[in-house]
């Protein structure tokens, strides 16, 4: 059965999500274990595949119905998307465990079965975007993931959530349209939808890069995916969506959604257009992405400083963090790409833990005001510890995961002669330190006479996933294997050191 893991990893959450309304009708109690089980299997499957790829050094291919690519539809797992798959499935599993109690509180009774079903479909959509070897399938899964995200955001029953979900729907659909137009242009020129097939056509004839429809296709992909990943200045939909969504939705969407689009951009660059397109075909695109991501890296944390709502603060910090991942594509050397790729995991761990804390705050106080954190350290030490570790990782304190991302990005920037990226990274760390310190000061050093709004620790079902994510921030920071994986993935993309 190991040979079938690529398909099972996607299909089990997908079909579990589709069957859930049927099973939930028979017995409502089965819904949560089914979600945890399906995502547990997906986590097992994706980690198994990642280990497999890392030990053999060869990508896993899977063809549907025995039809070989590019005629048929196929999946492909290499180191880069193996890491992203493990990130999505792991975040999905921890979110599904975490959401047991908050979902009871925040999602209306009659909608809860559907909420779990939509959540599983959303996970399957993200996993599908990551694993597919076919650009049209990428679009189909992108639609599955987007439409379910709109629902996950709007489902909280708050009026602002409906508005946030609706504006994301409009903006997200525009983004998806751009991506579809890009696929159409590529198909018109190459007559193929298989990623590897298109890549080999480009490699065989690099004069294709000068054609205006190929360049237009790339521009469409860049704009569409930049909207989806909330890359500055196309991030307008994101803060409200994260702020007003129910806590489980913000936890899952914040830790995976934008990064999956960033991965799709990596895949489009390296797996469809090829490295030569970025170096020779249209080098200007690197400058454009460099400006956008540098602006995101500085301005995201800067805007976050003055937010009074914890979830909105974290949303703006995500705007900055996605810039780090995109910087990897700009730098195009092994160190820079290592920094970008490792940041998929590091940011998922840190942002996941922080949204667990924000969810705990909502669970205890009913709102996510930063001021309500005052004195939380006295009453909820575990949650506060997670907040501290993840906050340090966001700043990039040595021995936490965030430090490694910034270190490799800075090293890559110096190698690529983009010296000004280093002060950008430092400025971002300083701004991040300011808002993290503002939060930590409230949590640990509130005056004694302040009565904490968070009166007690959250239940274990919420504490364990938060602790696991917080521990991941430390593990990725202290042990070298995650960096080694990212480095091999970067080398496999074929960039020169």
């Amino acid at each position, binding site marked *: 059965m190991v040979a*079938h893991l690529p*398909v099972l990893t996607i*299909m089990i959450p997908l*079909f579990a999500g*589709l*069957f*859930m*309304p*049927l099973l939930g*009708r028979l017995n409502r109690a089965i819904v949560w274990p089914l979600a945890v089980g399906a995502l547990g299997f997906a986590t097992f499957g994706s980690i198994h595949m990642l280990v497999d790829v890392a030990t053999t050094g060869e990508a896993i291919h*899977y*063809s*549907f*119905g*025995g039809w070989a690519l590019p005629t048929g539809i196929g999946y492909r797992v290499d180191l880069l998307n193996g890491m992203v798959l493990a990130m999505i499935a792991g975040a999905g599993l921890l979110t599904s465990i975490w959401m047991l109690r908050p979902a009871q509180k925040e999602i209306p009774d009659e909608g809860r079965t559907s909420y779990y079903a939509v959540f599983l479909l959303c996970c399957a959509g993200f996993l599908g975007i990551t694993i597919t070897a076919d650009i049209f399938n990428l679009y189909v899964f992108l639609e599955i993931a987007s439409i379910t995200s709109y629902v996950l955001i709007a489902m909280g029953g708050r009026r602002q959530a409906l508005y946030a979900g609706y504006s994301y729907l409009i903006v997200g659909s525009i983004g998806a349209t751009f991506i579809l137009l890009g696929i159409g242009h590529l198909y018109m020129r190459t007559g193929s939808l298989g990623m590897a097939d298109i890549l080999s056509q480009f490699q065989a004839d690099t004069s294709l890069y000068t054609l205006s429809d190929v360049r237009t296709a790339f521009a469409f992909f860049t704009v569409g995916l930049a909207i989806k990943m909330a890359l500055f200045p196309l991030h307008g939909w994101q803060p409200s969506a994260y702020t007003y969504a129910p806590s489980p939705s913000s936890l899952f969407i914040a830790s995976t959604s934008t990064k999956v689009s960033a991965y799709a951009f990596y895949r489009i660059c390296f797996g469809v257009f090829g490295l030569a397109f970025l170096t020779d075909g249209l080098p200007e695109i690197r400058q454009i992405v460099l400006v956008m991501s540098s602006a995101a890296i500085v301005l995201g944390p800067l805007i976050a400083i003055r937010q009074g709502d914890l979830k909105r603060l974290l949303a703006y910090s995500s705007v900055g963090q996605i810039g780090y991942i995109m910087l990897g594509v700009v730098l195009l050397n092994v160190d820079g790409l290592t920094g970008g790729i490792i940041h998929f995991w590091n940011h998922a761990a840190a942002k996941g833990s922080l949204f667990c804390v924000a969810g705990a705050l909502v669970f205890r106080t009913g709102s996510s005001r930063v001021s309500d954190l005052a004195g939380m350290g006295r009453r909820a030490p575990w949650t506060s510890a997670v907040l501290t570790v993840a906050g340090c990782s966001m700043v990039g304190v040595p021995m936490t995961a965030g430090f490694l991302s910034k270190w490799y990005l800075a090293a890559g920037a110096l190698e690529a002669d983009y010296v000004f990226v280093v002060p950008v990274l430092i400025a971002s760390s300083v701004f991040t330190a300011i808002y993290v310190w503002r939060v930590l000061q409230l949590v640990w050093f509130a005056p004694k006479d302040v009565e904490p709004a968070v009166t007690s620790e959250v239940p274990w079902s919420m504490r364990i996933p938060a602790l696991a994510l917080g521990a991941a921030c430390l593990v990725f920071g202290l042990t070298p294997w995650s960096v080694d994986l990212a480095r091999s993935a970067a080398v496999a993309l074929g960039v020169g050191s």
Partner: protein
Amino acid sequence: MRTEKSPVIRYVALRAVPFIQLYALYVLGHGEDGPGGGFQGGVIFASSFVLMALVYGYGTGRKGAPEKITDILAPAGCVLYAGIGLICLLMGGAFLEYGRLAGEGASEAAKHSAHHFGLIGIEAGVMITVTASMITLFFEMARDAHVDHGQDDDDGEDDDA
């Protein structure tokens, strides 16, 4: 607005329904080697219920496809689809490799017919899901209009909103 549809429309619509449904099944069966398939068949099948609702009213249309049944059928179609995919997988093939349904060491002809049955099977799954979803979509949207006008049209009044 309460208006009774003319007897001609009521007569024709009622007798058109079986033909629409038969045609839907034809489109389903045809999908393998021509334009058509589960999605199109499902939409056509669902349109017969929409026609009933338009001519005989919301209540009569919904009676033919109660919410309970459509809610069960929508996931059931997916069960059929996934089930066939998984059986192919358990028989040693790839996901959706229908030829394997004929079993180990089957003749080419047997594999060929197994392929047909597998394909028709998953298309039927798609059709069931699409039919149920289309009916649900239509009646969910029509319900608001129906409730707004406070109509009680079980005896065949029309819902002109």
